[in-house]
């Protein structure tokens, strides 16, 4: 459904961010992109979104090549990036300008209700907590019903408890329309909690290092042996991705504890 073919990205300053990255994601699949800092996760997401153009290779959604931001693709940035001069409700409705006002209002109300912010529509973004703002930014992207949702470390600025709550919120939101979800994260637990698959990347230049399936049923019990095992497997691959700069693909069983992988 979403297919990345041989993506290369060299920035104008010469930084080689991605080298021959290929990835196929099925409709409705949740894929976590994990990797050390600077391995090109954000770059990959920006290429998929069409905000940035690849040096080589191409991105296709349902067979259609992506050159520029596309209505089927939603993007949630690392920071909420709400527009400070719009109310919370207007922010959520930002991508719904083409709809008649009544329909737009209903969709926004429904979205606010879904993320537990009913009654917050008239507030300014400055009157929200960090977690509330991030929830608003997530529904702003989801309310247009994209087929593909891209998220760049959406919860990394939040404390562990808020993060776990928002991860549950996200899964609940995802279940409503089941978009294909590509999620960048630094957090192994987050990958295990959300994803059907963790793609571990390796830096300098950015490549795919390992592709780890996480075939656990939802809702997931964070204390179950399967969950712990999934976390361990991702952590081990992450560790391997940083200790083998030449890029082997055989580290799934590695037992060494993760060092300073960030």
């Amino acid at each position: 459904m979403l297919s990345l073919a041989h993506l290369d990205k060299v920035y104008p300053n010469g930084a080689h961010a991605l080298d021959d990255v290929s990835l196929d994601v099925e409709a409705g699949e949740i894929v976590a992109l994990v990797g050390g800092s600077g391995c090109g996760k954000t770059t990959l997401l920006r290429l998929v979104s069409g905000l940035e153009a690849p040096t080589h290779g191409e991105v296709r959604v349902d067979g259609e090549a992506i050159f520029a931001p596309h209505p089927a693709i939603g993007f949630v940035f690392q920071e909420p990036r709400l527009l400070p001069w719009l109310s919370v409700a207007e922010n959520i409705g930002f991508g719904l300008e083409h709809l008649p006002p009544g329909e737009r209002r209903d969709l926004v109300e429904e979205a606010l209700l879904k993320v537990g912010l009913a009654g917050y529509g008239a507030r300014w973004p400055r009157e929200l907590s960090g977690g509330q703002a991030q929830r608003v930014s997530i529904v702003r992207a989801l309310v247009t019903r994209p087929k593909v949702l891209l998220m760049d470390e959406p919860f990394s600025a939040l404390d562990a408890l808020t993060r776990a709550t928002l991860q549950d919120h996200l899964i609940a939101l995802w279940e409503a329309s089941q978009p294909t979800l590509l999620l960048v994260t630094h957090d192994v637990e987050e990958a295990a909690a959300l994803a059907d698959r963790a793609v571990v990347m390796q830096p300098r230049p950015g490549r795919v290092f390992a592709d780890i399936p996480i075939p656990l049923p939802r809702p997931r019990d964070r204390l179950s042996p399967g969950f712990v095992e999934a976390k361990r497997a991702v952590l081990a691959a992450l560790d391997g991705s940083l200790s083998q700069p030449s890029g082997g693909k055989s580290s799934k069983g590695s037992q060494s504890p993760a060092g300073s992988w960030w």
Partner: protein
Amino acid sequence: MQTLSQEPKASTRRGQRADSARPGGGFVYGLILPLAAALLYEGAFRAGLVQARLLPPPSRIAETLWKLAASGELATHVIATLLRVGLGFGLGAAVGVFLGALTGSSALARRLLDPTLQALRAIPSLAWVPLFILWLGIFEPSKIALIAVGCFFPVYLGVMGAIANVDRKIVEVGRAFRLSRLKLARRILLPAILPDTIVALRSGLGLGFMFVVAAEIMGASEGLGYLLVDGQQLGKPDQILAAILCFAVLGKAADWLILAATRPLLSWQDSFARSG
């Protein structure tokens, strides 16, 4: 559809808190200092402590103002001055906003225009006066041209800088939602530059009042600046002070007008000044 844990109901509505950030009677505080100074001086004058020939007491200034107002003269002068400032500021600010927007949003326009405009800015505006008088005569057009030039530069610089400072991350939100260039300008750039643009307009207006005095001192038969010169030539310090007082009130009122007109557009702002 699933409903998730509910936050406690938010009860604030926009209307309710519209002015909570600014106490309505705030201007009373601003009056304390000038009124106290006036009363003190009046008292000293009544007690015979000061020589009032060159610095007349407030009561005398008030009397002069009253006489000017009663004869209708004051209105003539105030209207003349306000018309000049209004026209000059309108012209200068309009061109400033236009050129600032152009150079701010287009690198080509900036490279073509900005060096020349910066060089022109380096010329003291009053240096244009002789030329303006030669070109436009000694009456209104040359005065308005001078005021317009004075208002132009702060507005131009302010708008250009405001556009350059728009957060790339916010612009990217617009791109992710596929806004056309026009919509991007209307829905993202315009609101983003509004606060800085208003500051630029306010400083432009301030300069407008500065240059109207210069223009009127150099030759006018009406206007508050004319009252100043007239007061000097006839040795009437009370008239000079009355005109100065009018400038203070008009300048403050004009600035307040800009603030009041734009405050509803800026109630979203999250800045230090709001909480003060």
